[in-house]
Structure formats: structure tokens, C-alpha cells
């Protein structure tokens, strides 16, 4: 296995265009080689913009979701690769896990690596993980696993059941009002140009009446709501259960038990979940 080392972050335009072209093959294939970007310098002004859009204060240390955003060009690069029959188009981000091993400063130079792993059958297609690792001077500081469902793709084997997140209705104790332009704002700070988040036409083409906000915005906003309450190192897991239409209002509910924050972003009335998130310190996660 060889690592493909990039000298700079791949431009999103062409790679994204390729990643958006539906594959003709039905058999799911992924590039084996990880792709890596070294000596990456974070842009403090873009971080400030990201923090404003997602509701984080601008700190010296960065949110783990920001580190995810930095891996995203490599996601696109991998799924735009000719060895990949899985395309970003039609791939649904179903769940995400991240571990922040220690606070990461905006001034630290990062080595960012992403590999496509774990291709497995699912009733509605193929599941795969994009596994990200960020290192600072050889030390792993962040790990992330983004699980996508490639609808209609085939992988040999018995389909695996995605565990359904248990959910009982909550009484939201906060309401977020998501403006129509939020998709454009998050596109600017995340670099994710998928028109499903900004264009009504594109959204309709994928079966949504209106544009939907990026799942990773909702994840970031939920983490920002816990800001000040989180340990220095933690693991966070989310399941994206239902897209949020723009503009729209959603409910927010968080509870802390046994050191684990359980968060639900729900419909306004708290009956249906859009996103379920848990956050726990890595001490606990390791135990």
C-alpha cells in the first residue's frame, strides 16, 4: 500500500465535479491507498468565519469539526479517483465519529491523511468509511470516521443492519432558527460545494422540497452549544437521522449523565430526531 502525498490541498472544483459524476459500475470499488497532505497551515481568518457560522467562540484551539472540514478535500479527492466506483453524488453521510486526543491550536501545522475503508453491503447499497487522521509532528491529535451510504452500489456479502439509534421524544430546551442562506454560509467556510445545500433545483433533483443544511453544520452547532462544558480531549459520535430543510427551525436537547453528553437535534416539537450526538471524555472512551 502506498500513500499518495499531495503538496497542496486539492482544488475542489474539478475533483468535486468528478466526484459528482454518477458511476456506471454497480460494483463498489475504492482506492486502497490513503491520501495525505503534509505541512498544512490553517487559515485563521477562515477559522474565524467558520466559528461565526457554526456558533463557536474564536479560540486559539480549534473545534474537532473544523479538523473534519480540513479533511473534506481529501474525501472528495478519494471519491473522485478513477479507481473509485463510489461517487460522492448519491453517497449519504449517515454517521460520524471523531476523537480529539488533545487541544489543537490554529497555529499548528498539520499532516492530514484520509483512507477509504470498510466497504460493506447494506440493504440499500454499500457502506464505507472515510477514515481521517491528523498528526502534528508525528503525534496523532485527531481521528475521524465518516460513514457514507452509497445508494444502489453492490458489495458481495450479507447486508449489515445499521443499528437504529434509540430515540424517545424530548422537550427541546432551545430552538435554532436556520436562515435560508445558511447553506451558502456553510459552503463558504467548509468548501463543500454540493448544490443540494444551496439550490432548490438541486435539492428537488434529490427528492428534497428545499435545500438541506450540511449534516456537519448541525454537528458543529450542537458541539458549540456544549462549549465550555467539554473536556480537553473527547470523543463524539453522531448519527444523521433526518435532513434539516432550509429555512427551518429545529429543537435542541442535551442531557449529561455519567459523564456522557447526550444531545438530540429534533423537530421543533422534539418528536423526531434530525441528529443524535454523544460526547464523552477520551478517558471514558478508552475504558
Amino acid at each position, binding site marked *: 500500500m502506498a500513500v499518495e502525498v499531495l503538496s497542496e490541498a486539492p482544488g475542489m472544483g474539478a475533483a468535486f465535479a468528478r466526484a459528482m459524476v454518477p458511476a456506471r459500475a454497480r460494483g463498489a470499488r475504492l482506492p486502497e491507498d490513503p491520501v495525505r497532505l503534509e505541512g498544512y497551515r490553517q487559515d*485563521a*481568518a477562515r477559522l*474565524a*468565519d467558520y*466559528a*461565526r457560522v457554526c456558533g463557536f*467562540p*474564536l*479560540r*486559539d484551539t480549534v473545534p474537532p469539526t473544523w479538523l473534519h472540514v480540513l479533511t473534506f478535500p481529501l474525501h472528495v479527492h478519494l471519491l473522485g479517483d478513477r479507481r473509485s466506483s463510489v461517487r460522492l453524488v448519491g453517497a449519504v453521510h449517515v454517521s460520524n465519529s471523531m476523537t480529539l486526543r488533545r487541544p489543537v491550536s*490554529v*497555529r499548528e501545522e498539520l499532516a492530514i491523511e484520509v483512507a477509504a475503508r470498510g466497504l460493506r453491503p447494506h440493504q440499500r447499497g454499500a457502506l464505507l468509511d472515510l477514515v481521517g487522521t491528523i498528526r502534528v509532528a508525528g503525534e496523532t491529535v485527531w481521528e475521524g470516521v465518516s460513514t457514507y451510504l452509497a445508494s444502489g452500489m453492490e458489495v458481495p456479502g450479507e447486508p449489515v443492519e445499521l443499528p437504529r439509534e434509540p430515540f424517545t421524544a424530548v422537550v427541546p430546551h432551545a430552538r435554532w432558527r436556520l436562515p435560508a442562506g445558511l447553506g451558502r454560509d456553510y459552503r463558504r467556510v467548509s468548501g463543500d460545494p454540493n448544490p443540494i445545500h444551496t439550490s432548490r433545483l438541486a435539492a428537488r433533483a434529490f427528492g428534497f422540497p428545499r435545500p438541506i443544511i450540511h449534516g456537519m453544520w448541525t454537528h458543529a452547532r450542537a458541539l458549540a452549544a456544549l*462549549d*465550555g*462544558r467539554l473536556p480537553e480531549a473527547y470523543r463524539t459520535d453522531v448519527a444523521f437521522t433526518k435532513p434539516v430543510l432550509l429555512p427551518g427551525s429545529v429543537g435542541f436537547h442535551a442531557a449529561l449523565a455519567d459523564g456522557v453528553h447526550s444531545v438530540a437535534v429534533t423537530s421543533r416539537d422534539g418528536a423526531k430526531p434530525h441528529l443524535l450526538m454523544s460526547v464523552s471524555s477520551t478517558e471514558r472512551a478508552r475504558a
Partner: protein
Amino acid sequence: MHHTAVVVGGNRTPFAKVGGPLAEASNQDLLIAALDGLIARHGLAGARMGEVAGGAVLKHPRDFNLTREAVLGTSLAPDTPACDLQQACGTGLEATVYIANKIRLGQIDAGIAAGVDSASNAPVTVSEPLRRILARASRARSAAERIKVLARIRPSHLAPLAPGVAEPRTGLSMGEHQALTTERWGVTREEQDRIAADSHRSLAAAWDRGFFDDLVTPYLGVTRDAILRPDTTVEKLATLRPAFGGPEGSMTAGNSTALSDGAAAVLLASEDWAREHHLPILAKVVDAEVASVDHPGGDDLLLGPVAATGRLLARQGLGIADMDLVEIHEAFASTVAATRKAWADPEHCAALGLDGPIGTIPDDRLNVTGSSLAAGHPFAATGARIVPTLAKLLHERGPGSRGLISICAAGGQGVVAILEGM
């Protein structure tokens, strides 16, 4: 019940010039950064403070609860109450007095005083006619009525307004006011440039000896005050063109404070609480006084602290000579010079109702680690910058050493306080 209110420590962001390296940070970001460092340094994560008082001079209306919102962004216990307090450039010191008084009365055991300003993110507002039209439109009962109201908007209403820098009752900016004071008190260009050069030299020396290592936390890649120019000299400052007082004026960008971004916070506690928590005790807050002048009637806008100083010293039975250290906020170099001249002037002090002149102090007691000319002056943060600085200096000198803080503020106001080393 009477308690001793002590300064435990402080923390601030480095200060930077407007539009500089901290320009992306909002008031709330900056205040959180200052509080984060204070919390980390003193092990306050998860602790419920008695109260946090802070404020900003340039504040957007949506930030009406700026300090409470900032507290919620930190690791302090979420049930820590907070209030916004504002007295122009006196904010940081007035917040210190507010918290210290609550501690002295036994109402709280420990609290935080803070101040922040982001000149880079000064709120921009709409013109008064436009604001009235929009307010009327929002009260309209029908769409037709609303359109009728909105139709009154004229292009001239649409220009956004930067925050006013002029004193509302005189129409003069602070610099223009100070130029009048400079003239009246005969403050020379050389005096002003000397004060500015000394400020930069003293602040640079304090940084070099590590004095600020436990008072400042780096933020967004800025590790030292970005305005500081260690290599500036009287000769270099003498080449600058006048900024206030016309072509013959003596006030320049070099001997006036720069518009700045930054935040500062002070941890105050009762002596008992600090001891129980094994925290440092730097100095006690002895007393404070606020005064104002009649600047619409022609008084010197920035000499408000003179009367406050005289009354405070008299109440404490102290003289200016009893002060081992003095911190006079350098709004302009000329403010410092004029303040000292006013202290020594029998007529001026008599007119303020004081029993004789306040007196003089030797240069080596004044602003010994530099002040606002070199550090920068995020308006509301300055008092919260000076309090921990002076408290630490007095602590270094030993118990019983005394220091005076004098801060002038817009509106002809002045806030002064006495600290005593412990």
C-alpha cells in the same frame, strides 16, 4: 461584616491595533479568551463565581448581556451570574470596584472584573431618520400602511453610521478636547514624546524580564502586545506630524493611544477565600473614588481623575507621597503630563474643593511597566489591565506598599483606586 477584598491575579489577551491580528475576534471572543486564561491559571474550571462584572464601550445592542454570554462560553460553572457595566474607559476599574465592594460587604466570596473592546468590530448603525421609519413600519397594522411608511425612506437615510467619536455635548473628539488641555497647561511636544518613549521602553523591559508571563495569555498567534515598539525613541517620535490641535499641534499618533482590540480580566476574592483555595494574594483593594468635570462648561475633559484623587487621598488620610507606585492611564501622553501639572497646581486643586494641591511624584514611581501608549487601549479593558499589573508590582515590593490608579474616561469622568501590597 467587613472583609478584605484582594487581587488574586489577572489575565488578558495581548492587545493589538485596530484592523490588526485580533481583528477577526468579536468582543465576546476576546472576553472569553481573557476569561479562559484566568480560569486555567487559577484552576477555576467548573467553579461558580459570586459574580462576573464586565463591559465594553463599543457594544452592539445584541450584546446587551455580553459578560453573561461570555461566561457561558467558558468553563466556569454555568450558574455563575454576570452583569454588564460600562463607564467608558473607566469600565475595567469600575468593574473591579463593584466586585471588590461586594466582597468587602460579604455578599460574594470571589468574583471577576473584566473589560473588552474591539475597535475592529465597532458596531455600525443606521441613521436616526431610518431607524424611526423602520420602527414605525414594524408597528404598522397593514401591508399598505407599512409600504406607505417605508416610502418615506430617502437615499440620504441609508448611509451607515460609524460609532461617534465626538463628545455628544461639545462635538469635539477626545483628541480635540485633549489638544485644548495641552494648550491650557502648556504641555510641550518634548514632554509628550518623552512620556511615549518611556512607556514603550518600560513595557518592553517588563516583557523581557517575564513580568507579563502570568498576566497575559497568547491569542490567535499574538504573544506580545502588537502595538509595542521597543526600539522607538524621542527622536523618532519627534518626526511624526501633528494629529490633533492643528498644524502647530503637539499631539501625534505616536503620543496618543491607538484604537485597539483586546480584553482583560481580574480575579478578586476575600482574603479568606483566597487562602482557603491556596491562591496567591497580591494586593488588597483599599478604596476608590469617581469624579466628573463640567466639560460642556469648558473644563478639561480628561482631568476628571484629579478631583477623585484628591478626595480619595483625603478620605484615607494619605498623601500622594505615600504612594510607592502610580498608574496614570495614558489616554494621551499629554493627559499624563496635564494630570501631574494639575496635581501640583494650588489654584486648580482649590477650585475642585480640595485642601491644597495634591503634590508631585518622582518619575520613577509612574507607570513603571509602561501603560496604554505602548500596550494599547481597548477602552473597557484598560482598568482590568492595570489592576493586576499594579497588584503584582506592589506584591513584589512587599506588604504595605501602596499604589494609585488614575483613569480618565469620556464624559469628563475619572475613576481612581488605591491598592496595597500584601
